[in-house]
């Protein structure tokens, strides 16, 4: 616990205290008749307008972990790390239309989670359970990653203890977060997101204007980075990366960007923010305005190169004894800025961890409550009991995430997040395609899910990472030559890489179609559809909308 950075710590603590107060006050903000209902606690009363939704979705999709990890990837691998930019460029045009349909049908039928929709669309509790479990399993490591981001900042400020002491500040921060989320529900992250984003924007704009001018301009920065990345690494004997894509990783770049974009709105937490909005126009406006964050994210990614030029070395994590690549951006700020400004930057990243962590835990709690507790444990739970259950579940989820960080190597939670992305992508046919067509049979969807998840995991297991000596789960880039379909290698010898989740999704779809054709031939019952064609176009001012938050 030596060399604590006092000015930074003080500014960080003051801003942290400010959002804590905001978090508790949020329960009174735009209050509905009761907080004892999932519509109110878990969806903020389904009445957020364009601005609140913008901050909420932005706070949700662009997380502290993104802000820390994307530049870290650019720092270590070069151009490939920039995939986050095309990913956020294509996501809004792709999801605009499905998101509108999802909002409408959920508003009419009172759905709170994607699994609620699947349950209503196919009358299949099994398929809904699979979607709910996938959502919870994929979200948990995502929350843990927010803690990785928060810890990277705390370690840079000198709180880099080993063992349990090193995790204590993190635990305190999370207990506070847990309590105001418990009390205020989705209103807490919505309100805090304002503070987070204003801080983030200030910090990034200053950094991206000031740092290049200080370090000799962009031209010099890119040339230095190209030279450094092109030097063969002692571990593998190959260059670590390059500032352009290589012949082998272009396909990986495109499929990873597309796959991540398709996965983004399948994550339960992004859907939570969409469902919390007031109407279709709010969502449309947001799909136009959200790329403002993409710009910030892209500029931030370039800080990876800035860090190379500035000669930044990642800090050693005292808990694991290994270099922590995620400390690149915090150390860069610490070295290049006066301590008060670094304090603001760290607070921005720290608060940036709280907003998504809160939304994610609410989304996971909603899934648990609606699709497991109410479906299988207490069939006739009242709305009050549902709200109570969700509040408790949100505490459990957050404690689970803290336990993951304390008990296992942070690197492992990064691997879990990687797996989570591949898993959540396998719910695309049941959730996204079902918004448009009921042609795919529910048993086809179940079979596709099983194959997609199974094969996805097998492929991820087989990928080594020579740079850190890991045998399994070394990344999401599969060399086509290593792809095996029951021992058949269709692209034998090819070194071209592709995103595992994309391959698994194709397998998922093929199986879903084949099983659908068989099930239709055999005339297997395809469940009852609770939804009507006009549900998918309902808007905020329609007369017969379902009342919100009524018991």
């Amino acid at each position: 616990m030596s060399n604590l950075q006092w000015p930074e710590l003080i500014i960080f603590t003051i801003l942290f205290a400010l959002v804590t107060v905001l978090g508790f006050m949020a329960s009174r903000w735009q209050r509905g008749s009761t907080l004892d209902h999932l519509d109110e606690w878990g969806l903020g009363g389904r009445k957020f307008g364009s601005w609140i939704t913008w901050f909420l979705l932005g706070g949700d999709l662009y997380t502290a972990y993104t802000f820390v990890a994307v530049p870290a990837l650019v720092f270590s691998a070069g151009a490939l790390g920039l995939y986050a930019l095309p990913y956020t460029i294509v996501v809004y045009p792709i999801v605009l239309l499905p998101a509108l349909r999802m909002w409408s049908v959920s508003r009419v039928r009172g759905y709170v989670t994607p699994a609620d929709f699947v349950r209503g669309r196919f009358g299949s509790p099994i398929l809904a359970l699979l979607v709910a479990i996938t959502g919870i399993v994929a979200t948990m490591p995502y929350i843990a990653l927010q803690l990785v981001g928060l810890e990277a900042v705390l370690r840079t400020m000198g709180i880099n203890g080993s063992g349990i002491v090193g995790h204590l500040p993190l635990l305190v921060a999370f207990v506070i977060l847990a309590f105001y989320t418990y009390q205020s529900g989705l209103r807490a992250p919505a309100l805090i997101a304002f503070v987070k984003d204003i801080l983030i924007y200030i910090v990034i704009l200053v950094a991206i204007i000031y740092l290049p001018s200080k370090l000799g301009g962009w031209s010099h920065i890119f040339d230095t980075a190209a030279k450094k990345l092109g030097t063969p690494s002692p571990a593998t004997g190959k260059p670590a990366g390059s500032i352009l894509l290589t012949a082998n990783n272009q396909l990986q770049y495109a499929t990873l960007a597309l796959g991540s974009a398709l996965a983004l709105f399948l994550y339960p937490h992004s859907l939570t923010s969409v469902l919390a909005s007031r109407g279709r126009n709010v969502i449309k406006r947001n799909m136009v305005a959200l790329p403002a964050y993409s710009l910030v994210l892209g500029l931030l990614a370039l800080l990876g190169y800035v860090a190379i030029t500035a000669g930044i070395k990642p800090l050693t994590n005292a808990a694991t004894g290994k270099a922590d690549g995620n400390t690149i951006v915090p150390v860069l700020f610490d070295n290049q800025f006066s301590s008060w400004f670094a304090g603001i930057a760290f607070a921005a990243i720290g608060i940036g961890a709280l907003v998504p962590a809160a939304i994610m835990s609410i989304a996971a709690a909603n899934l648990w409550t609606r699709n497991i507790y109410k479906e299988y444990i207490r069939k006739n739970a009242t709305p009050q009991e549902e709200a109570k259950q969700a509040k408790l579940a949100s505490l459990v989820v957050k404690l689970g995430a803290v336990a993951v960080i304390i008990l296992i190597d942070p690197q492992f939670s990064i691997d879990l997040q990687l797996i989570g992305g591949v898993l959540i992508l396998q719910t695309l046919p049941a959730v996204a395609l079902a918004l448009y067509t009921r042609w795919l049979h529910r048993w086809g969807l179940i079979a596709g899910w099983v194959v997609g998840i199974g094969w996805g995991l097998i492929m991820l297991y087989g990928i080594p990472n020579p740079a850190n000596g890991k045998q399994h789960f070394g990344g999401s880039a599969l060399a086509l030559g290593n792809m095996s379909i029951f021992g058949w290698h269709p692209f034998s010898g090819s070194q071209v890489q592709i995103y595992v989740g994309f391959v698994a999704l194709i397998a998922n779809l093929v199986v879903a179609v084949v099983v659908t054709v068989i099930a239709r031939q055999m005339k297997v019952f395809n469940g009852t559809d609770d939804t009507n064609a006009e549900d998918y176009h309902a808007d905020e001012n329609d007369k017969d909308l379902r009342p919100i938050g009524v018991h």
Partner: protein
Amino acid sequence: MSTVKHDGKVRGLQFNPWNLLLIVPLLVLVTPLFNLDGPRLFGMPFFYWFQFLMVAVGVLSTWIVYMMTRAKPTVDAPDKLSVEDLDEGDAR
């Protein structure tokens, strides 16, 4: 395909040709188009500034689609807002 019945509700799949504009930003997935160092802009290789430019293209395409597909009033009936509605105004 879209059918609007006498109650003013929309059923079935709605298709508006303007929606096709949403395909344009997907160009950013065709990496051979821009995986080049030159020409540089402010010292940034083409690979980087092209993708920043595509953010703007994405916004523009989505914005045009939003403007062109906004719901138009289905009936030209006179405005019959109740007092309560007027009172709430935009705050709803």
